[in-house]
């Protein structure tokens, strides 16, 4: 049965359940499912139980507890957690224990979330299936032969399996929204700058953003409120007040104008089953009182090309730091420093990471810089302008989160372009820095599919409000049970 984080928090705060009992039951569920899901790189049972007991002691004393008190929480292994293994899915960081915690982790712990483990991911967050983890692939709790999506596949899988109600992931081109769609959960990519990136291992710094991956929309609102906000440790975090998002959750959509993107609808129409599902989702939005309007994102079709220049360029620069000198794994270069760099990097990075470093280095190198990188940045401007125009006519955009339900393990792993195309519907929002989420929208071939909702910058509350009304009406995820339990 689906149990939400907010229900747990309420029961724990009211002393109907102890945080320790909740944590034990989550740890047991994880242990039971882990052989089939492999969602975690590191489990932290002692740390979780110690935190839970501390929360119980504070509740017993009558002290205040945080907004996520006692909720078992899964953290993508990209977030530094002081003293605990943080690998980012890479062999190169297989021994890395950060001396500090990321702001996201600090804020989760300050809100009294109980962190149960670090979840599997595509290496350095590069991938759409979790198959690029250097350690092992993760499986989808709704189809054990299927991928959980990526790169935040471990968090999606464990939340989708209902072992824990909340998790966090990161999204650069779709890495929260696509796995959320595949695992039948809610996944939110906030506005760029909304959540601090401090201590979150960098992939593409102008795009990376952390966000909630949760059982329902209310949980996403609570987690986002806990982790969002200005952080002096991240100069790209924006000093805009964080609202109490739970107040913005709606039950109907009267007065809301929802834009359907002409170009996206033409694209999804090529798959009748997917098109039918989304048509039904839009009808539900209209039945809730929303006005449906037609909008256009004429440059959306250039998203893939733009993204696969900008993101690899930034990745090639960010990953230059992994040279075996200061942390991570070092391979001996026989006394020669350059040979040490070369051997460390050649052995430490997996194929997808190497592919993107080479592509990005090429896009940035002298002679090609203007033709590729600068041109891509200009197209990025055009895409941002497309959204500005669209939002003059609507309050939020509704569109597909993905082009298909979860695919089978191995189906696309030898074809990087097919894998890159998985992000077709999510990349434009990333390039424009806009908030977008995926909320369960039903099933195609009995496999989950998510609806994407996107809002103007810093309007996460509006987006969550629409998703909440839709979720309340449809209850797609709550209606069925995953195959693993």
């Amino acid at each position, binding site marked *: 049965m689906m149990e939400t984080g907010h229900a747990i928090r309420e029961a724990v705060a009211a002393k109907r359940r102890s945080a320790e009992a909740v944590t034990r039951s989550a740890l047991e569920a994880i242990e039971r499912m882990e052989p089939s899901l492999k969602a975690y790189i590191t489990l932290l049972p002692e740390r979780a139980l110690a935190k839970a007991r501390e929360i119980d002691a504070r509740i017993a004393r009558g002290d205040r507890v945080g907004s996520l008190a006692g909720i078992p929480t899964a953290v993508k292994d990209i977030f530094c957690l002081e003293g605990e293994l943080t690998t980012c899915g890479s062999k190169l960081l297989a*021994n890395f*224990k950060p*001396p500090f915690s990321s702001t996201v982790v600090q804020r989760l712990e300050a809100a009294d979330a109980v962190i149960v483990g670090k979840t599997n991911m595509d290496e350095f967050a590069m991938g759409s299936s979790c198959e690029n983890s250097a350690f092992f692939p993760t499986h989808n709790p709704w189809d054990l032969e299927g991928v959980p999506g990526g790169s935040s596949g471990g968090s999606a899988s464990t939340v989708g399996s209902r072992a824990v109600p909340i998790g966090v992931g990161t999204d650069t081109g779709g890495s929260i929204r696509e796995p959320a769609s595949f695992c039948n959960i809610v996944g939110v990519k906030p506005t*760029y*700058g909304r959540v601090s990136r401090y201590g979150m291992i960098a992939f593409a710094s*102008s795009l990376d953003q952390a966000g909630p991956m949760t059982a329902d929309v209310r949980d996403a609102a609570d987690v986002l409120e806990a982790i969002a906000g200005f952080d002096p440790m991240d*100069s*790209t975090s924006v000093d805009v007040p964080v609202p109490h998002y739970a107040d913005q959750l709606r039950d109907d959509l009267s007065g809301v104008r929802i834009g359907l993107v002409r170009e996206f609808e033409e694209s999804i129409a090529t798959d009748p089953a997917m098109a039918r599902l989304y048509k039904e989702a839009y009808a539900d939005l209209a039945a809730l009182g929303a006005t449906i309007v037609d909008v256009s994102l004429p*440059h959306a*079709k*250039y998203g*893939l*090309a733009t993204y*696969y*220049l900008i993101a690899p360029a930034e990745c*090639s620069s960010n990953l*230059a730091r992994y*040279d*075996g*000198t*200061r*942390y*991570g*794994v*070092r391979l001996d*270069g026989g*006394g020669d*420093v*350059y040979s040490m760099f*070369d051997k460390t*990097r*050649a052995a430490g*990075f997996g*194929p997808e990471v*190497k*592919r993107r*470093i*080479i*592509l990005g*280095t*090429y896009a940035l*190198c002298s*002679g090609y810089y203007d*033709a*590729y990188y*600068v*041109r*891509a*940045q*200009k*197209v*990025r*401007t*055009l895409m*941002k302008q497309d959204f500005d125009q669209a939002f003059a006519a609507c309050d939020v955009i509704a569109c597909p989160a993905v082009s298909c339900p979860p695919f089978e393990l191995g189906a696309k792993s030898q074809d*990087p*372009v097919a894998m890159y195309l998985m992000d077709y519907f999510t990349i434009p929002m990333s390039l*424009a*820095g806009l908030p977008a989420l995926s909320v369960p929208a039903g099933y195609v071939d009995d496999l989950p599919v998510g609806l994407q909702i996107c809002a103007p*910058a810093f309007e996460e509350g509006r987006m969550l409000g629409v998703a909440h009304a839709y979720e309340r009406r449809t209850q797609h995820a709550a209606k069925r049970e995953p195959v693993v339990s």
Partner: protein
Amino acid sequence: MADVAIDIAYIAKLARLPLTDEESARFSAQFGRLFDFIRELQALDVESVHATAQVIPLSNVMRDDEIKPCLTQEQALANAPDREGPYFKAPRILE
């Protein structure tokens, strides 16, 4: 936009990422397909468009130059693959 004949050996050297012959051949073929998409950008007139490096309305974020608590030397060195006293140790760089 330039034609795509990526000199992978040269790029790999710039990236300090030596590739096997097999990796170079595979990446070349895969980049060919990706550049079919990337070439589409050539069709756009972006002459008068400014480049977006990042999307948020911030520039030159400043703060006071104050000493604040930070990692200790031991913490900073805790993950060093090799160290000597208070230093990271690496192979000799200058002869």
